[in-house]
């Protein structure tokens, strides 16, 4: 399973913080791969609509795109901070933490 995470938007554009993250469950430590798979399962990821309802109002919102490729199927979900799906925000928290580790070279 491959997971791609791309954060965008916010109050400013910071080149170092907007780099996409790619995680491959085959190369993650087993407990962590299991944790990620469970979070995706909790979010019913493959059943979520690809796009959140359009909102033409607002500014400086952060947007996220998560794409998952698994067993020949691929699905991507785009949403923003005002989305109320707690499971998606848990995923964002985890993926943001991994992105931070990646920036720090951990």
């Amino acid at each position, binding site marked *: 399973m491959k997971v791609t995470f791309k954060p965008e938007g916010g109050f400013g554009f910071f080149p170092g*913080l907007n780099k996409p993250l790619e995680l491959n469950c085959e190369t993650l430590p087993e407990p962590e791969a299991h944790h990620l798979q469970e979070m995706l399962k909790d979010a019913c990821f493959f059943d979520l609509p690809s796009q959140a309802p359009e909102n*033409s109002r607002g500014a400086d919102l952060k947007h996220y*795109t998560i794409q998952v490729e698994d067993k020949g199927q691929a699905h991507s979900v785009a949403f923003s901070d005002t989305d109320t799906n707690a499971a998606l925000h848990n995923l964002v928290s985890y993926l943001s933490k991994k992105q931070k580790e990646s920036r720090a070279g951990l």
Partner: protein
Amino acid sequence: MALQALGSDMTFRNLRSVPNFHVEVIRKRPFSFMSAGEKQRTIFTANNEQALPGVVVRAEGNPATGEPAVDEAYDGLGATYDFFWSVFKRNSIDDEGMPLNGTVHFGTNYSNAFWDGQRMVFGDGDGEIFNRFTIALDVIAHELTHGVTEDEAQLIYSGQSGALNESISDVFGALIKQYTLKQAADQADWLIGSNIFTDKIKSGSEQPAAIRSMKAPGTAYDDPVLGKDPQPAHMDAYIDTFEDNGGVHINSGIPNHAFYLAAINIGGNAWEKVGRVWYQTLLDPALKPNTKFQRFAELTIENAKRFEVEAAVRDAWKQVGITSPAL
């Protein structure tokens, strides 16, 4: 390639959403019990969750709570309201006394502030790169000004119109900071969010690190983690990109710098003349949702005539590479 497609997706979605935009924003508040000049602030806390609006922690007239984020949001929204009222006789975001609602402690380590179409929302920052976003008055004013722009011009949040939307928020953010500090144009630092970064972040100039610099776009930060401030100061360096809704926080450096140059050319308090020119341009019916830099420049020059600063404004745009026979 797949990642590029992911990155560009939001830009196209914003473009598609335009037809519905006007209907939503013309629905103004039908009635207000407040007298003009009286602000009505309510600060909520999201208690580090992501549900809006959260729980009320301070309402208009309540004493200070002693909690920095709450009191900074309350005071910052008040200073912004007072500026628009005192300088332009504008009664809140919609000029009809719209209540000012702000939510603090949004999310966990959330490093951002935004306008969601109804309220200003502020995160606490991660403490490593970002401080809490209420710490900077110009950031609070920037978010409230997005509401004003949405009410008046509905500039599409993508490409050049989106960069103008961002620039207008920076312009009034800077003006409100200068007005509060009683600084003339040549005394101001023209930095946006100069205390948002922790002291770990490296500046790209001799000034403190900041999110953006209107005086010298592209120099606000130059840091191993953040990268280098990508803002151009001139059309020659305009960046075509699908990132950031088509570069709304990147190419805003060009109109930002034009405003700075006009303010310096004119001298004195920037809110008195050039600020008024930009405000009148924002109210100008000729300013359309898809307006680009060239047309915006023409409108500012047109509006500058009544304040007798046309030459200074024209010269400022010329210095950032925007000229035409019409100018």
